């Protein structure tokens, strides 16, 4: 069974969905994405959890320039594939209640994006990685700009130019690395084998960092994010926050740090400090948000900041924590945005101050909301806990003060999340919220799935963690070896 089917089934599905009528497109898209999830699960069952790259494919693409279509799945990619294929059906289901015009194009773009992101997560060739990285940007731009809110045109073009600018510099970095390889290839193993000077590595490091930092986003490259999240349609926000920003984290783990270990080691303190500043800054701003969607957008910056900081600490627990937390943050943030979508669709507002007392009129909704909030604030036995624990642990190993500020912020995060819950759900029911109807049909299904995942992954995190364990261990070890060896001379 070749990985090509996994990578390109959504692309074929995207073309197929275009042929459906607008009313039936969503069912077709859901069906395809569930099949894709089934495929991914099949691959997981076949996957041997060691450090090797499995299901690899290698076809000549532009052999004259050393470009090959090389893709494969190791433990790290496996988790990302799981994240991607798990969230897309949920996202499609979550947009069932929106009657988008041109729905077939909408779902086709989602599936197209899924395909591109799967290639990003499995590519082992620098050129392929870059091309799919950009290919994932195009559909999300159109999703946001076609079905977004009022200010969408200005904000989405800013988003596009911003991210495109970052990735062009990454392209320069990739080309530069390519020219340094003895065989003139874009193969990742050749990139890993390079021995560049510190100066060279530093430049390449910053070229890559710019692209990944904008994508994640890391402070101070986050300015596109809150606006874009707020203006995008719910499915777009979920795709961006749930899956796409993980491309940045994944890129750092796979393409940046192991390729330029010395450059990374040299600038580690800068980037980790930026990540922590981002956590504190975003949390403080989130504290003052009235708009629920914006609040979640800022809290997402904080959470991703923590993931980034854990990756940049580059310890076993940091990277492993990042892996599990990427999956869990994806689930939680999709849940949070769906909650906010349900609220804003019923109340026609996202202003938290106008709400209150919804728990009384919609008890089932209240339970689901509470579970998702608890998962987001990382209560033990919910899915958020293990990841944040490992991430903070790695921060602690790196620097206690940074760990302390990041840790305090986690508490702050809990405060504003719970405060939002209190504002929305508790207190007196007012005229607006009195008419709030409890969740039904697909809403129940989506929230049910998310809540089950939150609890299940909270209790059994190892079911995912054992997938990436060996790969992460080897990757972290090899980088640290390289840094140590360089230090000796």
């Amino acid at each position, binding site marked *: 069974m070749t990985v090509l089917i996994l990578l390109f089934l959504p692309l074929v599905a995207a073309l197929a969905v275009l042929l459906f009528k607008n009313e039936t497109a969503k069912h077709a898209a859901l069906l395809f994405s569930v099949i894709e999830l089934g495929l991914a699960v099949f691959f997981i069952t076949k996957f041997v959890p060691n450090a090797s790259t499995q299901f690899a494919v290698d076809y000549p693409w532009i052999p004259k320039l050393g470009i090959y279509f090389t893709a494969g799945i190791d433990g790290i990619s496996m988790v990302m594939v799981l994240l991607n294929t798990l969230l897309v059906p949920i996202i499609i289901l979550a947009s069932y209640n929106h009657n988008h015009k041109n729905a077939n194009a909408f779902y086709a773009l989602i599936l197209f994006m899924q395909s591109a992101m799967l290639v990003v997560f499995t590519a082992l060739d620098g050129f392929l990685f870059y091309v799919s990285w950009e290919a994932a940007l195009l559909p999300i731009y159109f999703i946001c700009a076609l079905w977004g809110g009022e200010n969408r045109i200005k904000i989405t073009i800013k988003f596009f130019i911003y991210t495109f600018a970052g990735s062009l510099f990454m*392209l320069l970095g990739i080309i530069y690395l390519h020219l340094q390889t003895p065989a003139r290839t874009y193969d990742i193993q050749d990139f890993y084998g390079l021995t560049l000077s510190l100066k060279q590595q530093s430049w390449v490091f910053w070229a890559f960092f710019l692209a990944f930092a904008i994508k994640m986003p890391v402070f101070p490259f986050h300015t596109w994010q809150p606006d874009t999240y707020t203006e995008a349609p719910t499915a777009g926000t979920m795709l961006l926050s749930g899956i796409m920003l993980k491309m940045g984290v994944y890129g750092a783990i796979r393409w940046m740090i192991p390729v330029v270990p010395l450059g990374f080691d040299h600038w580690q303190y800068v980037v980790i400090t930026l990540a922590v500043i981002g956590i504190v800054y975003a949390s403080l701003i989130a504290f003052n948000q009235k708009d629920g969607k914006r609040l979640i957008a800022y809290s997402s910056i904080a959470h991703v900041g923590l993931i980034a900081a854990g990756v940049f600490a580059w310890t076993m627990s940091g990277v492993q924590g990042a892996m599990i937390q990427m999956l869990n943050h994806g689930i939680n943030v999709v849940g949070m945005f769906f909650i906010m979508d349900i609220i804003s669709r019923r109340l026609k507002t996202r202003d938290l101050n106008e709400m209150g007392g919804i728990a009384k009129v919609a008890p089932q909704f209240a339970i689901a909301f509470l579970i998702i909030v608890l998962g987001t604030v990382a209560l033990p036995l919910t899915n958020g806990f293990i990841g944040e624990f490992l991430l903070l642990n790695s921060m602690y190993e790196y620097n206690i003060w940074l760990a302390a500020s990041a840790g305090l912020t986690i508490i702050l995060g809990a405060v504003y999340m719970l405060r939002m819950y209190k504002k929305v759900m508790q207190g007196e029911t007012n005229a607006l919220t009195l008419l709030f109807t409890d969740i039904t049909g697909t809403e129940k299904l989506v929230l049910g799935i998310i809540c089950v995942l939150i609890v299940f992954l909270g209790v059994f995190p190892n079911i995912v963690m054992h997938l990436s364990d060996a790969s992460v261990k080897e990757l972290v070890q090899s980088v640290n070896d390289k840094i140590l060896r360089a230090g000796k001379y």
Partner: protein
Amino acid sequence: MNTLILISVLPIVLLYLGLYKAKNALLPVTVIGLLVAAGLAVAQWNSNAQPIYHDMMLFDRYAIAFSVITIVSTILIVLLSKGFFERISEHVAEYYAIMLFALAGIVVMVSYYNLVMLFIGIEIMSVSLYILAGIRKRDVASNEASLKYFLMGAFSTGFLLFGIALLYGASGSFNLAVIRDYTLTHPRNIDPLFYVGILMIIVGLCFKLGAAPFHFWTPDVYEGSPSLITAFMSTVVKTAGIAAFLRLFSACFASIADFWMPVLLVITVVTLFIGNITALYQHSFKRMLAYSSISHAGYLLFAIVALGTASANSVFMYATAYSIASIIAFGVLILVQQQSGSDDFDSFNGLGKSNPFLAFVLTIAMLSLAGIPLTAGFIGKFFMFSGAISRYHIWLVVIAVINAIISIYYYFKVIIAMYFRNTAERVALAVPGYFGFVLGLSAFVTILIGIYPGIISNFI
């Protein structure tokens, strides 16, 4: 060689067809004739080319590749012209004929082996273009375009001719090989006249290319000329100009690159910035394309500056991608112009809904011009960037990247207008069959090259 003969004879046949009122035969005869010409060019592909006609011309792979791409672009443009010239004038045959005369000049421009032939080629092309620009006799803008183009063109031809004369004075020959040998045998004591001659030639050719600071004629001429002629000028003519440029500089002046490279570097950077930044402020789609064509001239020069004599492949790739995308842009523009009578961005509003096909192909064209992956334009830029980085022109690449980022904004303006601004219900445009074919084919080729560039990247 037969290509050139055929392309020279073809317009005369067309004129006779016009004389005998066989209007319906014009288009098929032109297209079939050009296809045969392209086929003849391809047939000579593997021959070990030697200069012919007393060393006047050389049909090497370089010449054949650029001849074929210019001929193919011309075919696409000619196909778009069905019904276009009839509205402008009654003497349709003349326009096909003049366009083909220009093409004959272009084939000479890409295959010369003697500076006299370069000059003759440029003149054949330019004189034809002066007429084409003024094709709408009663239209003031068209007259202005023609006059401006003629005056500026004559001026630049003067520079070119003066430069050629100076080279002759220094080296004693018009022959490219002799001139090259002159630079090789006199590395220390090259006549100052020779240097001045090179500068003059750079000025003359940059005029033709529309590179800054010799670009002032471009926007007015492009805007005033009929859209189809503008398409011809900004694709075929530009490709030919850069091909002529590269042929001369790689054949003759490679050994003294230290002298002309800095000059060209300045021109490139200025061209990139002026083209891109001015394009940002345009309200008219056509004028935006004119300025963007200036910036693309900058990218083409960038390849020469960054790669020197090894840039033929990059230039060919980029010129192909650019030509195809521009033809789509102008094709859609012509249709929109016919409907709304305006070429502003606003006249594209709502096209995505009323004509999904047109909007889709134009989107592909804009993405290709902007250099987004999975389109031919990206491959063109990728070739250039990797070539430039391989020669450690990092800062130059960074400048090119900054310009690529700027260009996103104005290329996306039209995408935004088509898809996201649905001000009013607009009536669907009727897309003639020829248009559908040309636009669809061009979009397909753009994506095909973007995904699998191997099909054309091995040409030269």
